[in-house]
């Protein structure tokens, strides 16, 4: 199987090597006869840099959601990827059915919004505490 690999060196796969999807992704690569450089999802910006630098021609994601969230979070410069005509593949794809594609995008968007809302609340709480503590100290320590 390894002898029949179609790509070497310029294929990247975005998946945590020790995560829950690693085995499935590994078998996808084996079936496709690909060898790839692995990028954890949190290191998507590294994959982006490698695409822009021309070091990656094919990028494999586990699912659409991972790419979409990368685009929405600003970690993937998708216009540059399109310029470079990057070959995108997915371990789990909704296929050609438009309705299934829309469903995948909608679910990804909902999940992204929920996660973003949680991050905003958490950062809002932390920054607010810092702000009111700073105001308290500034007033307390200022001469009257």
């Amino acid at each position, binding site marked *: 199987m390894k002898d029949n690999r179609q790509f070497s060196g310029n294929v990247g796969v975005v998946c945590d090597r020790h995560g829950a999807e690693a085995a499935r992704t590994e078998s996808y690569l084996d079936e496709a006869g690909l060898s790839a450089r692995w990028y954890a999802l949190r290191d998507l910006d590294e994959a982006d840099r490698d695409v822009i630098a021309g070091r990656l021609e094919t990028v494999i994601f586990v699912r659409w959601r991972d790419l979409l969230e990368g685009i929405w979070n600003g970690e993937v410069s998708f216009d540059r990827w399109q310029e470079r005509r990057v070959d995108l593949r997915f371990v789990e794809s909704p296929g050609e059915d438009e309705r299934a594609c829309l469903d995948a995008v909608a679910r990804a968007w909902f999940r992204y919004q929920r996660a973003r809302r949680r991050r905003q609340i958490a950062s809002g*709480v932390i*920054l*607010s505490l810092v*702000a009111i503590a700073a*105001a308290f100290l500034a007033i307390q320590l200022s001469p009257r």
Partner: protein
Amino acid sequence: MTALALLLVVPLIMWSTQSVLLWRAGLPLQARINPRQLPRHLKRYNRAATQTAFGIVLLAYPLIRGQSPLSYYGDFFPLDGHPWELLHGFAAAVLYLALIYVAWIASGNIRFRVRDEPARLARRLAGVPVMAFLVAFVEELLFRAMLLADLVNDLPLVAAVAVGAAVFAVAHYVRSVKRYWTFGGHLVLGLLLCIAFVCTQSLWLPIGIHAAGVVMLMGTRPFIRYDGPAWLVGASVFPYAGAVGIAALILLTCNIWSLYGGL
């Protein structure tokens, strides 16, 4: 308790005026005070009646006590160093609100968005400082110089402050309003202003804090949209009604308590 009794006359006048105006317009009487139900051309009469009611109460209280209004209220504006407290209170409240807004913008809980056309925006903003000081001045005369000063004579100080803060908060809900969950914010705000008054025995500090709050809320309103949850950031012109706003009001109360000598 004379002041409290006089204050209760205000909603009575408001409701009576509303009823007369509704009757003149051929509309059914309403149990709640709700100026939004009035036809547009009658709203100004209702507003004028409300303001007149406040004026009557403010003038009546010192007269009942046998003092001229000028002399009574003038005593709450001492000139020996106290006017500085107005600026101090103003700056303190602006600092809290400015830092809170920065934190919320940075965390994406409020969004910067201009809602009005430039001309309308300029008109709205131009009126904010005058409106803020007018609102602060009238409310502080009513709730601190009249009500709280009177309560302090009849009740233990802590009870007077508690009742003063509660009446201040309830007064904001006499008319029908969109939101009632903001009551907690008004209560803590009332507590802050009552303590500022009690600590300084003057109106300079509470007016400074109050006016700064109105300036910041009305001045930023045309530019921001609340995206965060109401429990965190409040809503509309009530950022002090969310958890952060209430915490900030409590901390500012501690500042005032600590800097102006406590009770």
